[in-house]
């Protein structure tokens, strides 16, 4: 690739055809491909969820039998978690944005980056093959059921194992890039908050993922060879599986949410026209989350038969993990205070994030309280909690990013009005689906049950109707995004001060003709960035 060539063409025009994409080293192209991939799996798993909700329209059988229902919720959960939300924002927008934001021409190991993508594809293919003989364990693969069930658990768990490598390698790439490739003047205390969040996420990916990999290998060994790690008859312990699983999977919920928090920290100041409030607090709270999130996994196991002492310890620490999260929320609110707020589609998703994620986080605290969780565990309350944080949080954050960086990514403009209509439907639909589930849960409706008693019917029905509104919202959003109203985007339509906006939209393949030198924080609105050779 010749130097001059790579600056007068945008990365989208620099080569066409399958090979120019599938063998690219360009972080932007990889980010875009991840975005398409996670988008497709999101739609696939969403279809499964619509079927699940349709099944619950009436008690007893509505459209599928009990075993199919079990397969559907496993499919939904496993695909959403391992193919959509864990790689999710980090792999797509992390790849696209980190080099742009730190003033680099690519990530530090571009080939490794491509390799991560291939590994992701391999994991995805294994998942798709597994559809032929799907598992029925739920995305958590708990023993002893996952060892005893006649369904095929091995293929899916092996797929998760493979996907783990993609996660680890991407994490290493981002960590080293942020350490080594920051442009002159881009000190740690000027690093954009999205990069801080991606950095913390990467730490979690590198440190936690190996544990779930080994755990799932043990599970496979247990099924094939009867190793006995999780089998009491052989001196093993089924609860040990839960310890290992959640040692990864609690940090994993922060792998899901941290990059979205990073997005909110970028979008809010731009559309409030104010510097971010409490930069350091937000940056360090990401690190704090990365550290503390390793200490609370037992809150998923309060009724597993785990000892009373450890229950109390985990409950107490769980309350600590909410502190850095709350710090972020307060700082975002304060950033907006007396700002000149513009309600663009991207901003609306970010505002909804704050609102919905706060509900999700607070209900997490209810669940972290030992006595309440004994009642609420494995009910729809937990289902509602996780969807408020994962959809209300991560997915709304992702949508905010898709709208916000749309001009930069595609060099086009979408129709704000249509996008806002979609937002309203998605916001309303989402709440209609999941708010009733909090009530269902407190009334005692268990999760992952095919059948339910008639007194739960009304709330279940409301929840199912909500999915239809939500679905229409998604379709309108897609329509608005896939049919841009202008094929020409300005370099910086939202007047952001961050580096990625200081180049044409879409960016040239090698990003910066001259590596910029920073003299001020990228949140100082009104201060011009100085670009020198």
């Amino acid at each position, binding site marked *: 690739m010749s130097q001059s060539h790579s600056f007068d063409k945008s990365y989208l025009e620099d080569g066409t055809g399958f090979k120019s994409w599938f063998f690219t080293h360009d972080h932007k192209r990889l980010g875009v491909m991840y975005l398409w991939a996670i988008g497709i799996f999101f739609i696939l798993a969403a279809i499964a969820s619509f079927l699940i909700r349709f099944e619950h329209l009436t008690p007893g059988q509505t459209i599928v039998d009990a075993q199919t229902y079990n397969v559907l919720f496993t499919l939904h959960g496993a695909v959403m978690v391992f193919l959509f939300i864990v790689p999710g924002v980090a792999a797509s927008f992390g790849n696209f944005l980190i080099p742009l934001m730190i003033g680099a021409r690519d990530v530090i190991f571009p080939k490794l980056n491509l390799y991560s993508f291939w590994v992701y594809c391999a994991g995805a293919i294994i998942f798709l093959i597994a559809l032929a003989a799907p598992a029925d364990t739920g995305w958590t693969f708990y023993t002893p059921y996952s060892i005893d069930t006649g369904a095929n658990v091995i293929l899916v768990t092996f797929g998760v194992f493979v996907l783990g490598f993609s996660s680890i390698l991407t994490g290493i790439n981002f960590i080293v890039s942020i350490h080594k490739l920051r442009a002159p003047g881009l000190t740690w205390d000027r690093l954009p908050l999205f990069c801080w969040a991606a950095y913390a996420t990467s730490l979690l990916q590198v440190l936690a993922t190996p544990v779930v990999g080994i755990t799932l290998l043990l599970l496979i060994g247990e099924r094939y060879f009867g190793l006995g790690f999780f089998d009491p008859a052989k001196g093993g312990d089924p*609860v*040990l599986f839960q310890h*290992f699983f959640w040692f990864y999977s609690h940090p994993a919920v922060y792998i899901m949410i941290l990059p979205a928090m990073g997005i909110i920290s970028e979008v809010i100041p731009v559309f409030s026209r104010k510097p971010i409030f409490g930069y350091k607090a937000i940056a360090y709270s990401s690190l704090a989350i990365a550290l503390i999130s390793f200490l609370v996994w037992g809150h998923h196991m309060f009724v597993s*038969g785990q*000892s009373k*002492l*450890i229950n109390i*310890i985990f409950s107490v620490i769980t309350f600590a993990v909410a502190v850095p999260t709350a710090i972020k929320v307060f700082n975002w609110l304060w950033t907006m205070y007396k700002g000149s707020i513009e309600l663009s589609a991207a901003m609306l998703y970010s505002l909804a994030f704050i609102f919905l994620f706060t509900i999700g986080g607070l209900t997490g605290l209810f669940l972290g309280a030992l006595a309440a969780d004994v009642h609420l565990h494995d009910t729809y309350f937990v289902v509602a909690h996780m969807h408020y944080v994962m959809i209300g949080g991560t997915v709304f954050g992702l949508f905010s990013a898709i709208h916000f960086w749309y001009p930069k990514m595609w060099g086009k403009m979408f129709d704000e009005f249509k996008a806002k209509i979609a937002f309203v439907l998605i916001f309303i639909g989402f709440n209609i689906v999941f708010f009733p589930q909090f009530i269902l849960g407190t009334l005692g409706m268990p999760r992952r049950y095919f059948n339910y008693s008639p007194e739960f019917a009304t709330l279940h029905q409301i929840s199912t109707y909500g999915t239809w509104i939500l679905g229409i919202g998604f379709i309108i959003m897609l329509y608005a995004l896939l049919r841009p109203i202008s094929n020409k985007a300005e370099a910086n339509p939202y007047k952001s001060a961050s580096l990625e906006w200081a180049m044409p939209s879409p960016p040239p393949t090698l990003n910066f003709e001259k590596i910029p030198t920073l003299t001020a924080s990228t949140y100082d609105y009104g201060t011009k960035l100085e670009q020198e050779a």
Partner: protein
Amino acid sequence: MVNSNTYKQYFNIWLLLMFLTVITVGAAQFDFGSLNIPIAMLIASIKAGVVALHFMHLKYEDGMTWIFATYPIFLLFLLIAFSATDIFTRVVN
């Protein structure tokens, strides 16, 4: 960087690892009761440490690399400590 001197050093480290392997095998011939596992783990950890320090060049790296290299050990400790706290304080009825 790589000269005959470092090769010589690598060779010595290799000898040391071989020697520790002999000790591992030797120790396995005796029954130390409940100490069997700790002893085997101790020898294995020394070997891993030597590999990390010399073959993986940790010895020549800065503080940041040391933090990255040792933090996972701390996490492993947490994983074991919390799980063990559960297992040893559980009331089975």
